[in-house]
């Protein structure tokens, strides 16, 4: 317990910020470079998790449980979103036999 507590004293908050931003950016780039829908959804999860990490860090630094509860809710929502997203994916796959985002361009202009 003691060594864990020192993490907060040793690791500056900035480090968490940077790590979180880095993960967020990687998720963003991933969403932009990939065409496979499921990987894009994974990138989304990555971004959400980076936010979670930051929240927990803030929470710890503020000594406020609110941030952790927010993380809890984000997890709930992420789960719900993934459920819906995968349901849509299944529907799409069934109807178009493809998980390529670029195949979906009937609606335009």
């Amino acid at each position, binding site marked *: 317990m003691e060594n*864990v*507590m020192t*993490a*907060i004293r*040793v*690791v500056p*908050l900035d*480090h968490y910020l*940077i*790590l979180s*931003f*880095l993960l*967020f*950016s*990687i998720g*963003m*780039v*991933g969403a*932009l*470079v990939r*065409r*496979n829908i*499921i*990987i894009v*959804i*994974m990138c989304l*999860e*990555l971004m959400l*998790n980076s936010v*979670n*990490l930051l929240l927990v860090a803030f*929470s*710890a630094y503020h*000594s*406020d449980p609110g941030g*952790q*509860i927010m*993380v*809890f*809710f984000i*997890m709930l*929502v*992420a*789960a*719900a979103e*993934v*459920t*819906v997203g*995968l*349901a*849509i994916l*299944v*529907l799409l796959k*069934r*109807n*178009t*036999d493809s*998980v*390529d985002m*670029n195949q979906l361009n009937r609606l335009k202009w």
Partner: protein
Amino acid sequence: MLYLFYFFAAISVIAALVVVSAKSPINSVIALVVCFLSIAAHYILLNAQFLAMVHVIVYTGAIMVLMLFVIMLLNMNTVVEVRKPVVTRILAVVTGGLFFLVLLAATRSGLSTPVPADFDPGIGLVKRIGMSLFQEFLVPFELSSVLFLSAMAGAMMLAKKDGTANVNLPPSSEPNDSRA
């Protein structure tokens, strides 16, 4: 202690990069699991044991399994993804890079929350979280049930095969704005 942070941070970042760049979706999923586990480790470092547990259960246990399940179900592990053009990828990286740089630059000057002297190590414990959740955050907690209900109902509605679902409908058979 700091090195522990750097260690897990490095794992998270490398795993995230693998997620983004792996050719096979299966590899991506596995990398993501690794990434999530490293993040769980960060949670423990930050004294959020309850969250770390929930995180592992929800993400690694539920979400990622669901994804793997879908990948298997839809036979995607064999699908070879067509890569996007180089220009697009460069632009994407530039966008992401700029995003990161701006945020980084902003935080150089920014957040300077000092380490609180009266740091409370107990905030991450189940008891404290529970108290908070069922008192202060009761309303959102209750409402999240609506969220789940709708997600559940919706997912079932979408993914369920109706008797007459027509598969692979050619675009031309749809009503079109032919009078344009």
